[in-house]
């Protein structure tokens, strides 16, 4: 009589996602791998604001108005909230094609292109679509094995296709795409306002104090803070304000940085931007206040793996003791509930290993993990930034 002990090890889908992202808080937070510059951004913002609140606000609140630090605090909190939202959210990653879908697309491509003789380079995999009377080309992504939707692009740093890909921002530690572009824009806008605000009140503080005790004495009082703050503010001002201006221009025309850099919609013989409504206000409203699609990655969905261990040695179960029961790809609630129901209603079925089924599952799992490995020769040509 063997006693089977089934231990459930809960594995969430984010742990098996391909691509070069890091996940925190059990899949709730999603960022790029290199986070160094993001920590620098945080340090600069927190440091400058801490100095401002510690030294100048006290004087200015008394001398001028208590609304000054209050407004600065509101701007600071808004900038931090939008920064964290931009950095931690899914930019609009398109999940990779599962093997069945990839095989179907390959079949379709071969049907259109026909067989290529040996030694010849296969024609580029492109599909043409007509959008608003303009012909738009859809490119095939060799890494994700899908035809990318219009405006999507593959980020070579994160190794993901991202919808409405804008750019990969190291300062924010994440890609900027469809789902987090508005947070990114509001972050740089609020940061510009905050920088201008702090810079202005730095100058006001120095001016006020100089009137009372003289300019040199003012500098002597707190030698460290002014040069650093003024330098940071000055340089941040020119870069961040410039960036905000550039993105305001892009929003008004409903373009992405990627399209602007590649010159997709400029030039004589090029297609005009089919996504623009022609009206600046409408474009702004759509980009900044339009509906926000939820993430299709399902990072926190459960991939259940049951490990049945026999307590007695006389029951050799072999390698097929593991039985992956749930879907490999992004799945909805129905998948979870079906797996759970299965476990509840048919206990002896789950305890019994299913050799050929698990063997059938294994290649799929292997294919998914091999997707994680970068394919340099194909990627170098195809990966777009």
């Amino acid at each position: 009589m063997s006693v089977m002990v089934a231990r459930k090890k809960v594995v969430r889908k984010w742990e098996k996602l391909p691509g070069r992202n890091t996940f925190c808080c059990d899949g709730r937070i999603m960022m790029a791998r290199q986070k160094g510059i993001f920590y620098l951004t945080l340090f600069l913002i927190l440091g400058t604001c801490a100095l401002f609140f510690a030294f100048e606000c006290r004087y200015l609140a008394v001398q001028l108005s208590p609304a000054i630090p209050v407004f600065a605090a509101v701007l600071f909190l808004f900038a931090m909230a939008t920064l964290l939202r931009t950095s931690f959210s899914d930019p609009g990653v398109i999940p990779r094609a599962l093997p069945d879908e990839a095989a179907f697309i390959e079949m379709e491509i071969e049907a259109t292109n026909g067989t290529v003789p040996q030694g010849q380079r296969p024609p580029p995999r492109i599909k043409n679509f007509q959008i608003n009377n303009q012909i738009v080309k859809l490119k095939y992504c060799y890494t994700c094995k899908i035809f990318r939707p219009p405006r999507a692009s593959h980020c070579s740093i994160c190794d993901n296709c991202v919808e409405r890909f804008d750019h990969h921002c190291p300062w924010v530690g994440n890609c900027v795409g469809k789902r987090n572009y508005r947070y990114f824009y509001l972050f740089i806008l609020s940061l510009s306002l905050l920088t201008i605000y702090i810079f202005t009140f730095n100058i006001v503080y120095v001016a006020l104090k100089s009137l009372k005790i003289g300019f040199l004495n003012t500098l002597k009082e707190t030698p460290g803070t002014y040069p650093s703050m003024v330098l940071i503010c000055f340089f941040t001002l020119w870069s961040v304000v410039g960036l905000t201006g550039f993105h305001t221009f892009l929003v008004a025309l409903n373009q992405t940085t990627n399209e602007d850099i590649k010159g997709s919609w400029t030039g004589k013989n090029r297609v005009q931007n089919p996504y623009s409504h022609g009206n600046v206000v409408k474009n702004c409203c759509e980009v900044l206040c339009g509906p926000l699609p939820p993430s299709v990655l399902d990072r926190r969905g459960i991939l259940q793996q049951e490990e049945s261990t026999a307590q007695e040695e006389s029951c050799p179960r072999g390698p097929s003791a593991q039985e992956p029961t749930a879907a490999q790809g992004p799945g909805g609630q129905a998948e979870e509930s079906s797996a759970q129901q299965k476990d509840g209603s048919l206990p002896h079925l789950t305890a019994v290993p299913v050799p050929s089924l698990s063997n059938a599952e294994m290649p799929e799992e292997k294919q998914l993990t091999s997707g994680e490995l970068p394919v340099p020769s194909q990627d170098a040509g195809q990966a777009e930034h």
Partner: protein
Amino acid sequence: MATEVHSLQELRRSASLATKVFVQRDYSDGTTCQFQTKFPPELESRIERHLFEETVKTLNGFYAEAEKIGGSSYLEGCLACTTAYFIFLCMETHYEKVLKKISKYIQEQNEKIYAPRGLLLTDPLERGMRVMILSKAQIEISIYEDRCSSGSSSSGSSSSSSGGGGGGVGGR
């Protein structure tokens, strides 16, 4: 030998795939989420054309409703912006509400129309909104028999899922 169709969940688990039909996205209207209403020839013998087209058109309508740019979406966007998007911690977005409606509709369609014809429609959300899959499910009677006899029998069901090598079990 009763050919009973048990619950939809059991159908998903026991489905063996001879073929899957992929309904791709239709990008002619831009980046909005729409699926091609063209009737796939593989389904010719399985389901009536108008039923399929009606399903796809209704789904397209739902997606258009989710992505509609109008007064209410602007209001939601502006309200969220003023609260620094903290309001999304307690409130569901309009898009998420419509996606829930869509999954309910798909389940209903599966129960009423597709399962009786031996088909299974998957929610595009499971595939990143790229494609809708109609999989041909075959109900294996041997599963139920073998399950009753002894514990060592799931090989009966798994040998019939030979088509699952590339595709995995139905509903994916």
